[in-house]
């Protein structure tokens, strides 16, 4: 055991920052926000975040690998549109399979372009994002797609009905996926390898880890996760709007960084990202509950992302600035200067 002191307390605070933040926001909202602390409201928050939670599963892994995936928002919408649009032709089993596989294929494409063609990940995914955007409109003709057959409503009812207090099947599925991924990343060798690849690519490669394979795998996880999130969401709402994944990129990036996943890679965790998503969603819900409009919510979401990026950049900047400096030497020089001035 390290000795207790100010530093270890700070380290504790840093390590569990997101959980502390979560508790604080939850307590604040429960105490002050009207109509916040009740089963109905918290269930509805959980329902909202269950889509982005699925998305964060893969996105966090991509970020742990030191890459970024900007295409998640369009993958969500694309998968949602495919799942409902192909349903008349293929039935649910077929259309869902196609949607999830399509998400995976987008991931394969992203991953190969990043790992093999060695293009910057956010440039690649910017390109695939544009292609997918076109594909979504092309496929849907620019309109929302909805299904209104009896079996669609049966599935929708099943996914949305509370089994236990707070837990509907859709929330449960998301939760299981998140916990499974967390366990995989923490407890298995191949899961931990993602951290090594992100922490130092060359060292990982020298240690015999096929870094390219892990990079591609991370993007595939991201594509599949986003697709599952989109599919589950449209299955419950029985309609796929073209704005389904519009804000997810903003929400998921900010949450992942707040959750403590470093943009440079090698650090972070899926569960932390999801807790951060929960925290942010409570804030956004709070904004609405306090009677401020949707405009304010979007503005605040943007501000939070800007603040988070700024904070991360500033912390790195300060760290690099202080690197190799000897504060005690500066103090001594300062003292000498003062003495000189006195004399």
């Amino acid at each position, binding site marked *: 055991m390290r000795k207790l002191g100010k530093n270890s307390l700070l380290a504790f605070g840093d390590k569990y920052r997101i959980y502390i933040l979560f508790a604080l926001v939850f307590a604040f909202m429960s105490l002050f926000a009207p109509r916040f602390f009740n089963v109905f409201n918290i269930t509805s928050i959980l329902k909202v975040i269950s889509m982005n939670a699925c998305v964060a599963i893969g996105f966090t892994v991509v970020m742990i690998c030191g890459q970024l995936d900007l295409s998640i928002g369009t993958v969500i919408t694309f998968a949602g549109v495919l799942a409902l649009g192909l349903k008349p032709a293929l039935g649910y089993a077929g259309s869902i399979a196609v949607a999830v596989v399509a998400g995976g294929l987008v991931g394969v494409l992203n991953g190969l372009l990043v790992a093999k063609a060695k*293009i910057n990940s956010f440039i690649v995914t910017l*390109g695939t994002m544009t292609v997918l955007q076109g594909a979504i409109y*092309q496929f849907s003709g620019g309109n929302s797609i909805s299904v209104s057959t009896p079996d669609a409503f049966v599935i929708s009812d099943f996914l949305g009905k509370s089994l236990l207090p707070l837990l509907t099947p859709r929330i449960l599925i998301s939760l299981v996926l998140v916990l499974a991924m967390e366990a995989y990343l923490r407890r298995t060798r191949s899961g931990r390898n993602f951290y090594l690849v992100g922490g130092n690519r060359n060292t990982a490669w020298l240690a015999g880890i096929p870094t390219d394979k892990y990079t591609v795998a991370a993007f595939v996880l991201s594509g599949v996760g986003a697709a599952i999130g989109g599919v589950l969401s449209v299955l419950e709402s029985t309609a796929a709007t073209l704005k389904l994944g519009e804000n997810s990129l903003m929400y998921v990036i900010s949450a992942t960084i707040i959750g403590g996943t470093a943009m440079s890679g090698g650090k972070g965790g899926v569960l932390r990202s999801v807790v951060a998503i929960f925290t942010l969603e409570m804030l956004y819900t709070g904004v609405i509950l306090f009677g401020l409009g949707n405009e304010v919510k*979007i503005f605040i979401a943007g501000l939070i992302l800007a603040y988070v990026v700024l904070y991360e*950049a500033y912390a790195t900047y300060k760290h690099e600035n202080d690197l190799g400096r000897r504060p005690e030497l500066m103090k001594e020089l300062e003292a000498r200067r003062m003495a000189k001035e006195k004399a």
Partner: protein
Amino acid sequence: MADDRSLGSSSVGRLVSAAGVYGIAALFLAVGALLQATGIIRGFLTIQNMLNIVDAAALVGIVAVGMAFVTYSGHFADMSVPTTMGFTGYVCIELLRYGFIPAVIVALAIGLLIGLMNGFVVGKLKANPIIWTLAVNYVTMGVIRLIWVNKQIYPDMRGSGQKAVELFDNIYRLRFFNLIGLPVVMLLVLVVAGQFVMTKTSFGVKLKLTGSSLRAAKFSGISVERVITTAFVLTALTATIAGLAVTSLSRVGAWYNGAGYDFKAVTAIVIGGMTLAGGRGSILGVLGGSLIIGLLNNVLTLLGVGTFSQDMIRGAIFIVVVGINAKSLRSLGRDDA
């Protein structure tokens, strides 16, 4: 592929590598002419259509010329361009009642502030340029929604004077000799100025070194923060100019006025031979890239390809060009893409 970072590259060599883009543009023109000759498309080789192409290319080109400075400095792209365009358009229309000149000046000042902020955060604090400017894009979108609550505004509805409205409409519609539109003239001026700044001034040289190797630039005493900030300011200013032109074209202030211009501009830049690794390329090439984007759009539209498929084609071209660039840099042994 020519690499004008290598020592001893003459200005002739640079011209040749830029001329490659115009070769491709000529090829597109030839394909269009061929398609018309075979009767597949109609109305390609008319003066009106050529003007349409040039006008469309001008708007993309104005943004691209500014953003090229950010790309050249090794910071990829400025994703805050779409809402910068939308926001400054809104502001200009809102302030038209105080006269045309003040409205334009305030719009430009706001563009300048956004550029300064981006430059400070990316240059000084070294934030990831794409993520930061994306965040700024969301924040500006939020500001637009907060102020105007999803309402669109028109130039003549805020009690603004007839004269100011007319001047505003003319930003896009003014034509010299009934042919060349004001945006085209602005683009040409910007291209000449940009090419001059990039190749003949000390700022251009510093920018090139910053883009080629940030560390080397820093260690040779260049204030890289200032260079990068200037690049972002130039981007924001040209985005503002393009934003005013687009708003003048549509005669309405709307948040979606600049949508898609970020990606179109980056595509024009990479097609124009500027690598995303920074430090390579030229403004003349970017002009060629913008022309190609304009031609591509025009030919595809005449062929009856929808806007959405055009997005897909443009995205695919973008990925392929960037991939080829990265590969050719690697085969040169400069694996920093």
